[in-house]
């Protein structure tokens, strides 16, 4: 279970990495328009989210300290001084993704059949649905924002 979602997640991760590969550290916080989600916030949010979401599969979170920077309701800061380095952010994202995948695959049917907490239960009824969406739809949305942000700062598209 979750093999297909994991493949999509890794495909999106590879694309996200490619979108950031040629960026200088200071570019990671570029905001061509006010309040624009920049690369540092996007990759940090994806790392934080994957870590937080893995709790649903029984994993112990490791990025709780990132909640104020990257959790829901957080806003992008204009300077990289507020953030971990580019490499730290990307490494954290990769690590969180692998832990999310491992936790999802290791979770038993009783846990996976539990109802999703909160209003998302209408669209994502079970923990299994939520974890699948985390790996696919949620990640894709923010990687899509990253690709658009890259064009907005004047960087060439990849394809």
């Amino acid at each position: 279970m979750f093999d297909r979602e994991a493949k999509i997640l890794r495909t999106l991760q590879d694309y996200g990495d490619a979108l950031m590969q040629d960026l200088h550290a200071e570019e990671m916080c570029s905001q061509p328009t006010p309040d624009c989600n920049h690369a540092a916030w996007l990759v940090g949010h994806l790392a934080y989210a994957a870590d937080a979401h893995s709790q649903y599969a029984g994993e112990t979170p490791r990025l709780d300290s990132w909640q104020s920077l990257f959790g829901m309701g957080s806003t992008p800061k204009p300077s990289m001084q507020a953030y971990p380095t580019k490499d730290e952010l990307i490494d954290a994202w990769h690590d969180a993704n692998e832990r999310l995948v491992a936790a999802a695959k290791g979770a038993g049917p009783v846990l996976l059949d539990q109802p999703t907490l909160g209003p998302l239960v209408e669209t994502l009824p079970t923990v299994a649905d939520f974890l699948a969406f985390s790996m696919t739809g949620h990640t894709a949305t923010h990687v899509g924002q990253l690709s658009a942000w890259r064009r907005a700062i004047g960087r060439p598209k990849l394809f």
Partner: protein
Amino acid sequence: MIDELLNLFAWNLDYAHRLVSGLQSAQMTAQPAAEMNHPAWVLGHLAFNVDKIVGDLMLNRGVAFPADWASLFDGASSPVSGASIYPSKIDLAGALDAAHLRVTELVRAQPETWLSEPADFSIRFATVSEALIWILVGHETLHLGQLSAWRRAMGLASV
């Protein structure tokens, strides 16, 4: 699994409508940065893509998407500024609605065993289910993420 995928597919359609709600005609093809995917291109591309790949390549039912629009929105196309070459917002939203309806009905009519069949039409995906997760969820939400970033680049509120 089919029901779960189609639920997310339906959520994507609702999100797409919310992202373009209130946009004026000229905004639909505005590019606040060079080569940025604008709403007209995103709506048309999503409609073309699911109709072509699921309806034609996966299920051999041909295409329903208007043939004279295909070159504007296929995988080799790029968005162009200026409204004159694109269908109207109403027509594009209608095309996306129609594509979603057609694909939903086609997919729902398939047996669960279809999901395990090899994805002979693709070199990227091993099985039908893997391809469907990408086409109905990953690919759509990636472009919708671009559209959400486009809104912020235009100075519009997030939805």
